[in-house]
């Protein structure tokens, strides 16, 4: 499974578990508009750490934080490369 599809499946899974209405995701979707809250993102990041073996948020400075879903995917792709 690609990094993108792994991330997407976690967004879908966590939104279901947390009873959140997930927005239709495109690369330009702002994370703030995704329908997920900070606890959802915390869970997604923890699970991606288990799946992909990396947590790029751990060392990133705030100004590097992804704003869109596309940024989020690239954030992980860059960290994994």
């Amino acid at each position: 499974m690609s990094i993108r599809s792994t991330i997407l499946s976690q967004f879908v899974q966590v939104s279901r578990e947390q009873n959140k209405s997930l927005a239709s995701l495109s690369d330009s979707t702002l994370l703030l508009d995704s329908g997920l809250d900070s606890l959802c993102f915390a869970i997604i990041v923890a699970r991606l750490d288990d799946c992909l073996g990396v947590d790029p948020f751990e060392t990133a400075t705030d100004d590097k934080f992804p704003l869109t879903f596309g940024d989020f995917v690239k954030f992980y792709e860059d960290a994994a490369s």
Partner: protein
Amino acid sequence: MKMPQVEASLWQLIARAGDLRDRFLWSAEDGIAFGHLAGRSILDTDLELLAGSAVLVATTRQLTAALAAIELDGVARRLVLCPPDLSAEHIAAIVAAADIDALVTDEASATVLTGCARTVRCNPKLAAAAQTRINRHRTEWVLVTSGTTGLPKLVVHTLSSLTAPIRPGRVISLGRPVWSTFYDIRRYGGLQVFLRAALGAGSLVLSSPSESTEDFLYRAGDRGVTHISGTPSHWRGALMSSAANRIAPNYVRLSGEIADQAILDDLRSCYPGAAIGHAFASTEAGVAFEVDDGLAGFPAALIGRSGAEVDMKIEADALHIRSGRTAICYLGDAIAPLRDRDGFVDTADIVHRRDERYYFAGRRDGVINVGGLKVHPEEVEAVINRHPAVRMSLVKHRKNRFTGAVVVADVVVRADRGWPADQTGVLQSEILEACRQSLPRHKVPATIRFVSSLNLGTAGKLARLGA
């Protein structure tokens, strides 16, 4: 010169408890009859030299420590029981803090301790005592706790505070009880069992660090153990072993950690003929109460009873205890008082009330902060452990940039439930769903990892980071 009146010594209490014949202390290697201790000594002529001294008992074997303690109570001014696995640095600190005059050891080449004027090597074979034991001192019993950080704490008890929770007939016993414990008897939980055996006209089967849980249970079973004690984690380990059915106890006791409903139910199922009780006790607070109704938590009526032997109150959700069973003080500098001005010990154990019962949530210093909301790992573990396929679990924090931390869980699956290895995803979903049903969302583990075992600390408690 007239000697001041002192209370009965441990040896005198043992002798009063009943016939010394056919009562034994058994280690993994050998055993000794209580009756064989009369007129004999492992300290020999050195015992007289230790009179009035502060003595550190640092032995390899529990049996030797037990025999030394029996001889030294009433003779030494202070008796420090050194638990196993203490570093030389910590032992040196204890020698200084407890103002130790003499070291009692069974090691041929004991570590040279600075500041310790005398070293006494126990005679592994009991020799005829040089003189009659004279009870002259109200010996301080000092127990060493595993502190959360840095040096262990030295907790001062007396024989009186240690034996105050022990009442004849408190537990079901047909004939002579044969006690055993997974604990080391140089820690509070184990010492309680040693004293219950010694003062209750019973025998004791000691554990051994070199022995597997299975081998220990086989040995305990062969000795006909009737009363046996350990932490919930000890018991989960015992139930995971193939030797759980090698013992058929009348009384199963849990203490030292929160006894959740799952472990109480599992023990009831494994030992249908046994009384199963869980006690709240700590080195500092002593034994506060015992619960024997088979349910987790404790009746709310225990709090605030006037005139009770153990006075309990709850402040800021933490259990506070005042009784004749609590320790007296800590030894050493720069440690907060053990008791407050009113004599209460703050246990730092957090309890929550539901209806007419209080339930332990966890330790105050073990709280995980998820986005500003508190999570006690133990309350999440109690929910996970209720799943029929789960033997035990450890909930811990993982750092996270979004909420500061999230809760994650390591889970050990019950081997006897035969959960297929390729179906762990289903099990994971079931456990998470059970958590979502019972807990607020910030307490539900973000991830669950299946592990084959969980580490226990030296006191038999689940090893928690920073605990």
